[in-house]
């Protein structure tokens, strides 16, 4: 009975994917649709990849630090990281534009040096970093927490400095958890619409282009890009999660 209920719920959750086969007429993939669509794929992949590098490079040391913190200090860091996660995306986009535009302190400084933080690649990447960082760091903290501290202490007693312990013991044992954290960050960033549409309408990534196509040409013009979008966003995180689950049950 319970299994049947679970199966029913799982099917209900997967049901929207069946719309990929909906009879909405021939999909439109004319040059008018195709060229901006492919450009948006390039924008999303390249700029999200850059954002992920920044997230990993800055977020991993922070996660390693938080994982070593006492409970009270950890709460402070986690509370701070939750803010960009909990902010409604549109609100985040507006706040970001104001803070990094002429009305914000850093924005004025950037403008002084001729750097505009709106409707360009840096604004796109920075927005994605803001959107994804909290997810990655909190996930990475959980992954690093899962490594038994006694293994790290034992490695230190065997003569390894803290840095070498991190790279030879902590990181290898946490790698799958870190991959899951990164995959969540990736999905969150590559699929971000609400904040990006405010901060970086141009260069248009896939979510913004999907919205533009939907408004301009209707559903048949959206479907090809939607398939590409799902193919780019879903498989890697899905695989990371499945592997992590398999390992935790092994």
């Amino acid at each position, binding site marked *: 009975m319970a299994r049947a209920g679970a199966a029913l719920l799982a099917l209900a959750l997967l049901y929207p994917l069946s719309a990929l086969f909906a009879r909405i007429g021939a999909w439109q993939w004319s040059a008018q649709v195709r060229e901006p669509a492919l450009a948006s794929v390039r924008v999303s992949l390249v700029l999200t990849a850059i954002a992920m590098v920044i997230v990993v490079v800055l977020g991993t040391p922070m996660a390693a630090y938080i994982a070593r913190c006492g409970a009270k200090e950890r709460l402070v860091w986690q509370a701070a990281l939750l803010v960009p996660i909990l902010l409604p995306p549109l609100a985040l986009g507006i706040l970001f534009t104001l803070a990094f535009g002429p009305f914000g302190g850093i924005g004025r400084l950037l403008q002084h040096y001729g750097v505009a933080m709106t409707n360009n690649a840096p604004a796109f990447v920075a927005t994605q970093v803001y959107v994804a960082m909290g997810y990655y760091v909190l996930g990475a903290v959980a992954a690093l927490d899962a490594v*038994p501290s*006694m*293994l790290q*202490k*034992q*490695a*230190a*007693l*065997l*003569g*390894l*400095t*803290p840095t070498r*312990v991190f790279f*030879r*013991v902590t990181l*290898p*044992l946490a790698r799958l958890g870190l991959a899951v954290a990164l995959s969540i960050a990736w999905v969150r960033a590559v699929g971000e619409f609400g904040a990006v549409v405010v901060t970086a309408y141009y260069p248009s990534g896939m979510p913004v282009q999907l919205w533009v196509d939907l408004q301009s040409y209707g559903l048949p013009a959206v479907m090809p890009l939607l398939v590409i979008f799902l193919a780019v966003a879903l498989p890697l995180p899905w695989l990371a999660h499945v592997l992590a689950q398999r390992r935790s049950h092994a």
Partner: protein
Amino acid sequence: MLDAHFTKRRRDFTVSFSLKLGPGESLGLFGASGVGKSTVLACIAGIEDPDDGYIDLGDVHFFPPPLPLHRRSIGYLTQEPSLFPHLSVRDNITFGLSKIEQADPERAEWIATLKNRLKLAPLWNAPASRISGGQARRVGLARMLARRPPLVLLDEPFVGLDRQLVRELIDDLVFWSRNIGFSMIAVDHRADVLTRLCPQMAVVLEQGQVIQRGSWADLCSAPATPLLQSLLAPL
């Protein structure tokens, strides 16, 4: 020479401990479960920091201030051998040894001795995550001894092993302790294990306090408390 005198507050009582242990000497730390024996070893190893006092090993000051673990050069083996599951048995045993150290003929011979004596050859390239509990204890022992530490701390590392294996491991440890000359502090709640492992000297703890120290013969002939008498009595 290990020279230690420290206290460590625990939730239910304070552990007070002092000790001088010469090179090659061994000490059995005896007492019922939960009296602070493991806390003593954890403080000496650096897993926990004492609240006050001092711990020196030769010229090296362990505490205060707490010396980072990687500078302590001690062996520490617990009930859980804490093998690195992502590495092979071989890589676990040579963990922490530099390439130069591993290439050193004397070191290589020593590791080969450990490998043969602890019957590790069939497991040598197996992942550490795939070996049995008894095998893991042997690997943990080999890993601890591979660096030839001057001080070895054993926190009930033989719990749950069959008596034959325990006898073999103890005989190996005693043999190497004499040959290499490392000092040894072993914790156990079983007197027969400790008398075989550390026949020279024993210290008895109750509620964090040392209630008796001396030879095992002294302890057996005049136990300081009824609890100690019952712990020493055969089943």
